């Protein structure tokens, strides 16, 4: 059979497939009716048979090239992975996120240790020499502390809570995403982000303590701080996972280790993002609110923190064992 004869006998199938494909590419698979969807699968299988025939009989031909391109365009639509459903998202936060966290809890411990050591170093530095705070904290903020004023009061008197919340959580999610992505610098960038955040907290705490501002500061930060810092540390852990894959790939090649650790790490950092949205709202609406008593804010902070860790350490245990059994 000549190429042209082959084209003539089979072209109707290809044309049909292409028109379905164009429709799909324009408006996703949902645009197809049930029969069209079924037809897409059938036509794709017919095409692969034609492709196999062309590979044997017309190597190096335009015909082969064309069929190959048509098939490779259709392939990703025919073999789709799991689609995104509400139940799937729920399942992710209920089981996947805590399970992934527990499987990689040592990275979280490492991330938290770096943070606490940095905070302690920052506090000690300021304890011995107050000027040291100037290295890491903006001079404006230091001025507020010197005047025994909470800088947050000024900030929230100017910016409405709704706008402030949005700015806070978009900024925090950016930090979390960056801490993860910087893992590709062999973990150095992630280490620096965690360290800077630790140093800042240590310095501010100690500086406030020296100017007897610790009370108002703790009143402001506890409601959101416990969970917020924890989530940044989880994102840091995700970055450290990527960094470790590059530094010490173990039994894998670096390339494989990167893909394996990356798949887990991205779950952690994506799982953390919605929590940061909620914490941004708490920080914008509850933390700076003078009408709410300090005790209540602290209780809320501790409650949210406990909720986070209970969820991360206890949720999805059952389903992980059933998975292993089956």
């Amino acid at each position, binding site marked *: 059979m000549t190429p042209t004869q082959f084209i003539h006998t089979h072209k109707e199938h290809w044309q049909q497939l292409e028109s379905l494909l164009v429709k799909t590419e324009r408006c996703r698979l949902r645009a197809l009716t049930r029969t069209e969807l079924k037809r897409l699968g059938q036509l794709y299988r017919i095409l692969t048979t034609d*492709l196999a025939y062309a590979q044997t009989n017309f190597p190096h031909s335009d015909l082969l090239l064309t069929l190959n391109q048509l098939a*490779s365009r259709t392939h990703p639509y025919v073999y789709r992975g799991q689609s995104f459903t509400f139940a799937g998202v729920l399942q992710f936060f209920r089981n996947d996120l805590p399970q992934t966290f527990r499987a990689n809890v040592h990275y979280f411990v490492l991330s938290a240790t770096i943070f606490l050591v940095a905070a302690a170093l920052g506090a000690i530095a300021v304890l011995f020499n107050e000027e040291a705070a100037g290295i890491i904290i903006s001079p404006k903020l230091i001025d507020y502390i010197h005047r025994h004023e909470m800088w947050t009061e000024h900030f929230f008197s100017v910016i409405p809570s*709704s706008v402030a919340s949005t700015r806070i959580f978009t900024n925090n999610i950016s930090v979390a995403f960056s801490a993860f992505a910087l893992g*590709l610098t062999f973990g150095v960038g992630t280490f620096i982000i965690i360290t800077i955040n630790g140093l800042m907290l240590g310095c501010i705490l100690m500086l406030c303590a020296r100017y007897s501002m610790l009370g108002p500061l703790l009143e402001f930060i506890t409601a959101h701080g416990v969970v917020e810092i924890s989530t940044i540390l989880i994102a840091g852990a995700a970055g450290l996972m990527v960094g470790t894959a590059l530094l010490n790939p173990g039994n894998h090649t670096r390339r494989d280790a990167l893909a394996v650790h990356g798949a887990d790490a991205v779950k952690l950092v994506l799982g953390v993002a919605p929590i940061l949205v909620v914490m941004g709202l708490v920080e914008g609406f509850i933390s700076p609110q003078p009408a709410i008593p300090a005790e209540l804010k602290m209780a809320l902070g501790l409650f949210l923190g406990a909720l986070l860790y209970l969820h991360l350490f206890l949720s999805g245990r059952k389903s992980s064992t059933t998975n292993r059994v089956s």
Partner: protein
Amino acid sequence: MPLTNPEAPAFHETVETPEQVRLHLELAGLGTRSIAYILDTLLRYGVLLAIFVAVVLVFDVFQIHWETTGDRFGTHLILIILTLLYFFMEWGYFAMFEWLWTGQTPGKRAARIRVLKDGGGPISFLDAALRNLVRIIDSSGPMAAIGMMFIFFSKKNKRPGDLLARTIVVREHPRTLMQLLAVSDLPPRIPDDPFIDLIRRISLTSDQHDLIVRYLLRRDQLDSTTRARLCGQIVDAILNPVRLQPNSEHLSLPQEPDYERFLQGLIAVQAGPPPASRP
């Protein structure tokens, strides 16, 4: 002489489908990917800039200063939307489009490239997020140099994000089927073809077939001298073996003005009923 050889190993990824058929995917190069990225970036910041300028102008006209005017005209809502939009353009744009458009963004669609899993399948939401969250390391601003070096030097044109998510970026050529069919739809002229006896004696190789088809498709874009010269060369190449055959003296060979008609007839006859049914 095919323009692109589908069997060539370089810059290609071979994928075995569940039907046991090998698919050859052409990997997108540095140039195409850069074009797609530049288009996407222009779109992202173009939209942001347009909206930002519009908001500033409207605020100016209505004498709104958001710190003093308070929440008149939904000022706060506008500020919130602007913040979210900026965040989306920075972190969400690529991941969302690649997830919703099965591996494509507006820029990738314009440049005709697509992100696929290593095995040729579609990428999931997590893959899209993974390969795009690390853009601050390998493709935003000056960091793009790192991504470009990776794409240029790595075996399968992968930037770090592709290594993490196990993805490849492939080229697509959506118009070729129409071209192929355009030629096979040439009007058949078998019954009255003056060279029918000659044509029946010729069996074209698949390379010769492609050559004629390409010539017929593009002849209108050639100037008349080149067109005549090319046509003559092709006809000579096909007729030379026939001239050497025994009993070829009494065949009427086509002369200069009939060359194109002869080639058309050749392709049309080849498109006729197949000699034997397909195995």
